[in-house]
């Protein structure tokens, strides 16, 4: 069985999960005890207007028919319409999604750059001072409410130090780079526009740093645990016996073995941070899915809420497949089958 076949099978296996997810999001939207149409139409709306709105959104049909329509729409790329802005959900998600993806990616990179070395140091100095410090620090930071820390950091870095911008992805007067991926950091590099690259890097730094804290602890812990386990393997003793320098053993052999478990946790964190971004985005006025989700959920705009939940599900499933592929690259013993 080769990789391509394996990939196709994995992707095919997502379909039932996504159908299940669509049932879930559909049921959530139907939990709504209030009358979203009444809310959207406003207090002055007559019964006829509400009825017309209801018909327009297909809410007058029996539930199974509504679900079939909803699911067919999902596959056709018609993810419904916002009750408030009257805009289609999918194009909106496409607009806001890159901002969240960019924020989350940088946060995962920061968390990895901080967490993996902390875990390695912890394992090398097991039960000694550096280990204890890393452990306390990671528990210390993961316990902060991220949205609160975001406010504090925004003030420190943005206002008191004046080193970093306070909010948004770019200043009002800077035109965003021509859209290829929607990720400003990458788009600006494609355009060879290094100035915009630097400006957007400055904008993304503080929010992604705050976001990364909630992933720091779990990455450190798993790196430490799997390093400790790998360090006790026979091949390490053998390598030490034949005189390979400790540093090389750690970085060339142990880390690679330990990294497989770490990769799982990092990719899980990607999903969690994407959710955590919702809170960070509200503080930094970051125009991503989070701001969109909060607005929609506060105003009972159920189509965007369903769309966001569904999109997160799709992305999370894809991340899992990607993780499995990275395993294979790190550990040649793993065969796809």
């Amino acid at each position, binding site marked *: 069985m080769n990789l391509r076949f394996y990939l196709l099978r994995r992707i095919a296996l997502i379909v*039932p*999960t996504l159908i*299940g*997810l669509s049932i*879930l*999001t559909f049921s*959530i*939207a139907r*939990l*709504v*005890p*209030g009358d979203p149409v009444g809310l959207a139409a406003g207090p002055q709306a007559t019964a006829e207007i509400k009825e017309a709105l209801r018909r327009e959104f297909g809410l007058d049909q029996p539930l199974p028919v509504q679900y079939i329509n909803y699911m067919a729409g999902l596959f056709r790329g018609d993810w419904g319409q916002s009750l408030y802005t009257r805009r289609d959900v999918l194009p909106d998600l496409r607009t806001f999604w890159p901002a969240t993806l960019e924020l989350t990616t940088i946060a995962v990179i920061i968390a990895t750059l901080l967490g993996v070395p902390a875990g390695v140091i912890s394992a090398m100095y*097991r039960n000694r001072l550096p280990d204890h410090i890393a*452990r*306390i620090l990671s*528990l*210390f930071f*993961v*316990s*902060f*409410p*991220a*949205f*609160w*820390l975001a*406010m*504090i950091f925004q*003030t420190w870095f943005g*206002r008191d130090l004046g080193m970093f911008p306070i909010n948004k992805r770019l200043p009002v007067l800077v035109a965003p780079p021509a859209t290829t991926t929607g990720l400003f950091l990458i788009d600006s590099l494609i355009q060879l526009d290094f100035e915009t690259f630097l400006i957007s890097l400055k904008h993304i730094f503080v929010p992604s740093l705050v976001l990364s804290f909630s992933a720091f602890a779990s990455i450190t*812990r798993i790196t430490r*645990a799997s390093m*400790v*386990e790998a360090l006790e393997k026979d091949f390490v003793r053998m390598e030490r016996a034949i005189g390979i320098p400790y540093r090389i053993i750690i970085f060339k052999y142990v880390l690679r073995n330990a990294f497989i478990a770490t990769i799982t946790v990092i990719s899980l964190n990607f*999903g*969690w941070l*994407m*959710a*955590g971004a*919702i*809170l960070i985005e*509200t*503080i930094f006025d970051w125009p991503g899915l989070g701001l969109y*989700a*909060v607005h*929609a*959920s*506060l105003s*009972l705009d*159920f189509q965007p*809420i*369903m769309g*966001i*939940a569904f999109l*997160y*599900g799709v992305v*999370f*499933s894809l991340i899992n497949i990607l993780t499995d592929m990275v395993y294979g690259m790190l550990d040649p013993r793993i065969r796809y089958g």
Partner: protein
Amino acid sequence: MAEPGKGKSSKRNEARSARWENIARGLYRFRSNRLSMIGLLMLIFILLVAIFAPVIAPYPEDAAGKTRVMARLQPPSEDFVFGTDKIGRDIFSRVVMGTGLALQVGTVIILLATSIGVTIGAISGYAGGWVDDILMRITDIFLTVPALVLAIAISAALGKGIINAMIGISLVWWPGFARLTRSLVLSLREEPFVEAAYGIGAGHMRIIFRHILPNAVSPIIIKMTTDFGFAVLTAAALGFIGLGAQPPTPEWGAMINDGRRYFPDEWWIATFPGLAIWLMVFSWNLIGDGLRDVLDPRARR
């Protein structure tokens, strides 16, 4: 076999003393972990604050939203240790009065999530076959979407309010418990004592509740502990967004949201509730960290 009655009770005593020995050993290992003891002391402090809140808070009536227009937006002073908010309520009193609420929220979420998760996980692991397949597919669907996103969607659909937020969070929190319980039941199911119980004619319910689950308790309790802090954190996040507790409830997340507009000039409104959340979550994380070592010595060697 001359005295079957006595033999039985001494067997039972033996089993009990073995269990006690395990617990005692675990307690010793927990006590020797200084960080966890600090966490436990912090939690006891929090519990005391929650119990004696009406006595500690100088203005307990502020929790209900009593206004004091003359003293609005006062910085921390002798009269108002943590300052006052936009309508002159004492932040210190509200933080203190909110302690019990935060503990209740965490408890309800964790208990609800545990009961759903353990039931589903136990049935799934014990029954196997298509029951297991269906239950685990459902669990997987919940795990495809990050908990916070689903919690926001469900609480939004149910309507704003702390009760609905708790329901929403519990409904997304159980899959972890289901997965854990299932894996425990799967391995316990093959144990000889389960086979023996089955052999002497014990029913499925009896086997699950009397023989399997008691042996699965400690990992579940540890997960309950480590999750408690994060459940409180999630509830606070919903309160902060505006979906959770509504004013004038002294819920910490909602208080931070309240103080957001005044930050950083009137920094005290949002800062102190945030520190309170941090203290609560940190104490549970310290305790959970120690408990993890007790249960899984592999994790910390």
